[in-house]
């Protein structure tokens, strides 16, 4: 990990909501084209941390950070960074599927259209490619002009993934992407994560320990705003170093 430059890195990161310190001196480096899972009890700061990577917390009044977040070695909180450029590089999938109340096609190409891309052929090609990457193409190819809201929850979530892929990010953030889905849809999302990590760096927040075990290469355990432990997933689940990690993954609290 030290030889190759890390894809994402946090250095002495503190984050505050007003007077409340949500993240305390986080240091972590994440490898390219690997899946890192964030686990920890509710309110431990893992979602807050995830959202610092694409600066989604910027819209919360009173939120501020200290320290650095590096994407490909560049501080994304630096003054010269444009948030819209950053988000082309770092895509996000949310806990609850949130398709726009528009057609399936419009959902997928939205990110391109707001960049000012009007070339119809390019839009259509990207739409097909993204939906195929998200393993949704076969199910929706005949109804691209139908409302995205008519899809099932699992399909909607894969549509949201396709939508994120369409703008060709290098990192995908996933905030409990399967927690609102049934087991079959969850399995499909997990398979998809396996596929996607060949090309993308993925960071996933999950409450589901088995899921973290199944999909991730590395796991980071957060507790009360601190990063308690960060290790290879296998190592973490078989021989955790910290007793808090051990208690959490064995289900003693959280």
């Amino acid at each position, binding site marked *: 990990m030290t030889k190759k430059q890390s894809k994402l890195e946090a250095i002495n990161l503190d984050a505050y909501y007003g007077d409340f310190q949500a993240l305390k001196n986080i240091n972590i480096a994440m490898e390219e084209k690997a899946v890192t899972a964030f686990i920890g009890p509710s309110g431990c700061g893992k979602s807050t941390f995830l959202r610092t990577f694409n600066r*989604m917390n910027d819209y919360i009044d009173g939120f501020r950070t200290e320290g650095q977040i590096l994407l490909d070695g560049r501080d994304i909180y630096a003054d010269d960074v444009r948030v819209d450029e950053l988000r082309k590089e770092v*895509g996000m999938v*949310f806990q*609850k599927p949130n*398709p726009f109340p*528009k057609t399936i096609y419009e959902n997928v190409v*939205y990110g391109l259209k*707001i960049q000012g891309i009007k070339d119809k052929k390019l839009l259509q090609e990207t739409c097909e490619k993204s939906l195929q990457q998200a393993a949704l193409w076969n199910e929706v190819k005949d109804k691209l002009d139908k409302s995205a809201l008519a899809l099932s929850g699992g399909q909607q979530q894969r549509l949201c993934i396709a*939508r*994120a892929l369409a703008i060709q990010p290098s990192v995908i953030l996933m905030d409990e992407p399967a927690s609102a889905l049934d087991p079959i849809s969850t399995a499909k999302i997990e398979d998809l994560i396996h596929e996607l990590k060949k090309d993308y760096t993925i960071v996933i927040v999950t409450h589901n320990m088995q899921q973290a075990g199944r999909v991730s290469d590395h796991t980071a355990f957060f507790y009360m705003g601190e990063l308690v432990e960060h290790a290879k997933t296998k190592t973490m689940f078989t021989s955790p170093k910290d007793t808090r990690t051990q208690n959490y993954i064995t289900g003693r609290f959280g």
Partner: protein
Amino acid sequence: MTNSEKNRLKDKAFQVFGIFCTFIGLVVLAIFLIDIIIEGVGRIDWDFLTSLPSRRAGRAGILTAWAGTIWILVLSALIAFPLGIAAGIYLEEYAKKTKLSNFLEINIANLAGVPSIIYGLLGLELFVRMMNLGGILLAGALTLSLLILPIVIVTTREAIKAVPRTIRDGSFALGASKWQTVWNQVLPASIGGILTGVILALSRAVGEAAPLIVIGALAYVPFVPSSPMDEFTVLPIQIFNWTSRPQAAFLTNAAAAIIILLLITFLLNGIAVYLRHRQQKKIKW
């Protein structure tokens, strides 16, 4: 009597009382409508709609009044909608939640409750005297715009608030700016609600006589206004004027004019209901 019997009785009693209350409103409205229709409907014909006002009740028409009402309607909409909707968007999407924005919020809600005649006085001072417009259509429309502006702002905010946070997050996460998110996601999803609210606000403005009388709208206008700089009258003023005459024939005229005014109001409300219905069918979160 056991407790559960008592409770059941109370439940029944309230139901009966509730039905009674509902009917009072409906019955009063029905009596009013029937009375007006019996009195006025025979008076409505093409001549009544296309004649100028007259001292003789039989020859008087409401052409200038309804033309003035339509003018006022359109001008007020053109002035109040962009201002109110833009202010609503700003307050809901852009403004930071500070003490100042709280203060603004409370006062906008308060403004919606200020009696319309006060707005008339404001319009008289501001538009008629300070801006020296005189009692013309533009001054009337500006005054009514002030009157409905708070309602437009409040309903715009309510409609925008109903768009889930997650839709905005989705748009931002794809690199959209605030304005792109508002324009492409928030407005399309809330436009039905916004229009419903602002049309209802307009239909309130259409029925106003007091503020327009205060700014100097005339009761007798012998010509149809052809520009916003013309003098004018509106249906409510015409009705008010006719009902204050002693002759019965003028009361018949007033009833007929009331029917026309109600038709305009119902038409506006109908459009609002239709838009809301269409919106609900289109989008289910």
